[in-house]
């Protein structure tokens, strides 16, 4: 009766209602987000897709407490983004790997753990574990410049996973990588998601990437930034790369494309 756990489990992981965000610029106010409503459940893989200026990154930053909404609310794990951030509820992966050149790969992954006050033994254990998770075991002592771009981005994902947050917020993490590396990382990310049961919010502007990865695709459009369509993907959880040639896949991709076209003003 008084067990609090089922209570928490009932909360969606992310819950945005009536969310608005307006930036005041020299050219007047910019509506980055208008009336955004969205629920993300535990274990979802949600992609946010849309042209630049549609507010997908801004929405992610609101979840991460890096931007403050003008009105409306966002709850992360049932609490405000600020409380969630301080409770280390999420790991954030930026567009660039952003590894510190003066730290080894291991040292970079240890960085958030040091900041959060883990003891040395726990740090070493977690570094080992997440490096294995992103298939970079053996690279702990290497420096970032000794790794390829794809490997650096994997290391930055490992860093976001190191402190075992349940939510992974990813802002176009593979945007700067070439197609082949990207396919490989997408497969790895799916495997990682299956193993860790994390809830992932993933910003992208690639339709195949969004359809391939997600259980839920959020289509957004600009001026003002808003959600135009939310597609629940019927694709199975097991997804080999070849799934991209199936009719189901192409059908979802088509719907995403239609959604993007509708929302786009072409002015």
């Amino acid at each position, binding site marked *: 009766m008084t067990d609090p756990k089922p209570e928490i489990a009932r909360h969606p992981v992310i819950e945005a209602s009536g969310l608005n965000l307006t930036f005041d610029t020299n050219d007047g106010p910019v509506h980055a987000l208008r009336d955004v409503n969205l629920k993300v459940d535990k274990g979802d893989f949600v992609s946010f897709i849309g042209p630049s200026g549609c507010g997908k990154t801004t929405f992610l930053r609101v979840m991460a407490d890096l931007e403050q909404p003008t009105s409306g609310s966002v709850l992360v794990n049932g609490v405000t983004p600020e409380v969630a951030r301080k409770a280390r509820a999420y790991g954030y992966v930026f567009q660039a790997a952003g590894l*510190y050149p003066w730290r080894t790969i291991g040292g970079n992954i240890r960085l958030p753990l*040091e*900041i959060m006050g883990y003891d040395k033994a726990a740090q070493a254990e977690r570094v080992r574990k997440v490096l294995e998770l992103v298939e970079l075991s053996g690279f702990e002592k290497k420096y970032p410049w000794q790794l390829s771009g794809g490997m650096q981005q994997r290391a930055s994902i490992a860093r976001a996973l190191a402190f075992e947050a349940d939510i992974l917020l990813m802002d176009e993490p593979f945007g700067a990588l070439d197609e082949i590396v990207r396919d490989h990382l997408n497969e790895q990310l799916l495997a990682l998601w299956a193993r860790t049961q994390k809830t992932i919010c993933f910003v992208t502007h690639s339709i195949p990437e969004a359809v391939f990865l997600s259980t839920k695709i959020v289509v957004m459009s600009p001026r003002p930034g808003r959600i135009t369509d939310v597609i629940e993907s019927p694709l199975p959880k097991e997804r080999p790369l070849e799934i991209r040639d199936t009719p189901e896949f192409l059908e979802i991709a088509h719907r995403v494309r239609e959604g993007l076209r509708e929302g786009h003003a072409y002015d």
Partner: protein
Amino acid sequence: MRNVIPVLTVVLAIVVLWYGASVQLNKQWALDQAARQDRVLSTAELVADTWSQAKPKLPAPHQVAVELWETVAQKAVTSKRSLVYHAWVTLSATLLGFALGTAFGFLLALGIVYLRVMDMSVMPWVIASQTIPILAVAPMIIVVLNAVGVSGLLPKAMISMYLSFFPVVVGMVKGLRSPSTMQLDQMRTWSATRRQEFLRLRLPSSLPYLFASLKIAMAASLVGAIVGELPTGAVAGLGARLLAGSYYGQTVQIWSALIMAAAVAAAAVGLIGVIQRVTLKRMGLN
């Protein structure tokens, strides 16, 4: 090593120009002397004379070299006639002033980066401080400090500090602000404290800027120490040698003191450069 030939070429060009200039500048005195003795100088005699006068307007390079050799190598370093002794007097004030200036500049930069009030107010004063000619301020600093019983090394070091804190402030403000928005956001997602953000991100990121500033600060510091010795009748130091040389028309002494000052500055700045290269290379920042 591939720099050797260009460098030697430039040095050679300077030496040739220098010899030529000393003929031009010292010629008049030699001709006047000869006229007084009713002698006519051949060109060879004239040139030889201009390169060996006791108090030339511009001493020839070999005269300066001989003076340097005599005052550096052939005198005990504790002797007041040793240029090494005078260089050390100046260098000690330079180093103390450099240390004080670096510390002061660093603290000011910290304040400017972290305190909005200082950010809005301090920089114009810092810039204004450097527009005042140091030659005008130096005697005042020394007189005032003397009046409160501080003399010797510290007043000179204060003048060095006055000149050397400036590049450190400017460089460190830029350096501490060099982390990108993304890097700062990243720290925020980890709920890092200001202290953690400073020690783990801002400080390491600022090192390339710090080293560049330190090189300028070191050179400025040496100038400050020499200027500090000029207006006070100091009895020791490169500034004192310059002053004594100009009182007695000892141009050879002036030039050897100048060259010593340049050598000291080059060595000190070069040392910082070596530390910079090693450190930044190890940090993967170059």
